[in-house]
């Protein structure tokens, strides 16, 4: 598989009345062609801001990419002109947001919105664009497309609107689809339809998907790889199996333990993560999870842990995995043996 996108040491901050918010504090990840990468983490951890940066849409003037590269093919998105970015968005990168109404114009007919999207990026006649729009509506599972074409967003249900947004995102065969909580506002039966639809389209077109979500079930269902974010940092990343079967970061483990397991017959007590995430005005210098971590050591509070690698794809940032920590353990064992 070839590399489609690579993000290196991305830092994004916002200026606010209260001071500077360091929303993204050195995020790195990559995505290959045809792959689905899930970014998970609790609200405020920087998922959406990361996505905004990848699309070159960090809100100005308050937001700023302070550091890092976002390599899309041979171009660095952080260095492109506004015009170039606009060209890429909608043609090479498609976007789907949580609330479909934010991406749809309530005063414009559904069909017109899709057709305009197509015409902006492709040299087609009006009629050809309409044909293409109808085909897209069919592709996302909308029936009676001729009639639906000339209806307004309010005449569609939430699930149908989200499908229209997907149709618009797909209008120009993007290589990369960024979906920020695309099913969070939807009922579970509709969520299943939308996820199936995304998987289906991916198979047909070999597109890559960055799926932002806080729902571990959605991750288990569709992701190839996962990046777990906490307080503006990717604390663990790996294949979906590595993350679910062999989590190496206490936060990942905590997330997995705090949701009930439908597939287990016994009712087990949930194991919550105590406390709440740190304030990004003054992020901790050490491990961002230290205040909530049951395994926190002195070093955790003082120093940000290094990246420890477990396989080609799997790494975590936690002192527990540092080989010096193992040495400490060995010392203790050795010490206790001497005592015996």
């Amino acid at each position, binding site marked *: 598989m070839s590399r489609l996108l690579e993000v290196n040491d991305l830092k994004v901050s916002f200026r606010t009345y209260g001071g500077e918010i360091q929303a993204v504090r050195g995020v790195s990840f990559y995505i290959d062609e045809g792959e689905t990468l899930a970014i998970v983490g609790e609200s405020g951890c920087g998922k959406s801001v990361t996505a905004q940066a990848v699309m070159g849409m960090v809100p100005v003037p308050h937001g700023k990419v302070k550091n890092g590269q976002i390599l899309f093919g041979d171009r660095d998105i952080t260095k492109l002109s506004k015009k170039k970015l606009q060209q890429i968005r909608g043609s090479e990168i498609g976007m789907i947001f949580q609330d479909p109404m934010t991406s749809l114009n309530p005063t414009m007919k559904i069909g017109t919105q899709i057709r305009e999207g197509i015409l902006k990026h492709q040299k087609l006649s009006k009629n050809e664009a309409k044909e293409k729009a109808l085909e897209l509506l069919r592709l996302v599972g909308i029936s009676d497309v001729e009639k639906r074409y000339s209806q307004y967003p309010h005449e569609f249900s939430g699930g149908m609107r989200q499908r229209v947004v997907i149709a618009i995102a797909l209008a120009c065969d993007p290589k990369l689809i960024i979906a920020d909580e695309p099913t969070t506002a939807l009922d579970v039966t509709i969520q299943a339809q939308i996820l199936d639809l995304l998987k289906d389209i991916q198979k047909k077109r070999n597109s890559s998907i960055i799926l932002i979500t806080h729902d571990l*079930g959605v991750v288990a269902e569709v*992701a190839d790889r996962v990046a777990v974010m906490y307080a503006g940092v990717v604390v663990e990343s790996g294949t979906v199996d590595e993350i*679910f*079967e062999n989590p190496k970061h206490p936060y990942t483990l905590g*997330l997995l333990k705090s*949701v009930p397991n439908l*597939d287990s017959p016994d009712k087990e007590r949930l194991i919550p993560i105590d406390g709440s995430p740190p304030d990004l005005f003054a992020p901790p210098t050490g491990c961002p999870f230290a205040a909530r971590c049951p395994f926190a050591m002195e070093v955790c509070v003082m120093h940000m842990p290094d990246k420890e690698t477990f396989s080609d794809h799997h790494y975590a940032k936690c002192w527990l995995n540092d080989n010096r920590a193992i040495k400490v353990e060995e010392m203790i064992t050795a010490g206790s043996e001497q005592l015996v």
Partner: protein
Amino acid sequence: MSENVLEIHDVKKHFNVGNKQVVKSVDGISFSIKKGETLGIVGESGSGKSTIGRTIVGLYEATAGKVVFEGKEISQLDRKEKREFNRKMQMIFQDPHASLNPRMRVGEIIAEGIDAYGLAKGKAKQERVFQLLERVGLHPDHATRFPHEFSGGQRQRIGIARALAVQPSFIVADEPISALDVSIQAQVVNLLEDLQKEEDLTYLFIAHDLAMVKHISDRIGVMYLGKMMELAESQTLFQEPLHPYTNALLSAIPVSAPKLRGTRERIVLGGDPPSPINPPSGCPFRTRCPSTMERCAVVMPEWKEVKKDHWVACHLY
């Protein structure tokens, strides 16, 4: 066999929405809840879950039918009894931001009910507020702060402390964890479970996260377009669902681990839920039901106990 603390009989709640149009948000629902039990209610957005909850606590007056609490019909209560009902029956809301008065200090919010029912005064009241804060995992110092100084999970704890302050016996929790992060949801669910044991509470727990509803509920009711489709013990409902809608709903839940991918056979529902202003004739689910028959368009199926403690409304049974 413990007694039913709550029974509702054929309860309807209709709203006039202008133009002579009526939304039948809740349209003929019956069930009962035993003391100390948790009944979970699931169903898609707009199916009437909040409306039934609000009707039970008396925020809405039922359009028809009876709500019977501790053996007495609530529309027949005299003033004193009504006051006592309002104390015993408390509600916790989904949005911990909107449900707390932003201009009141946390201590005042919690003490409001204590004052209203004259449950404690002066130092004893102060003590009670501190005790409640600690009980829900907050700190007595928090009493002097304002709601906006707290996180979503903490605000939900304040809402729970406020409900507990008047020593209720029954709590309607309407999506109490939906607005919270995964790691915080478990904190609140564990708290609700502990309180139930310690204070002998009965819960009506409304949610759309099916895994969480299964985790917390003894029995679960499934609603669709203002009607109850099925009601059974949690395990039974998940293992032997009878109603075609329940089947579809359960099949749509994402798997809990990637190795289970593809093990759940998905029943894809065609179309979208119909408008509650103009519901289909007969069975409300018939426009999307894979097993629909001629009869389904004509008559609404009866609410039947087809096995012991397993109720369903469907012509297949």
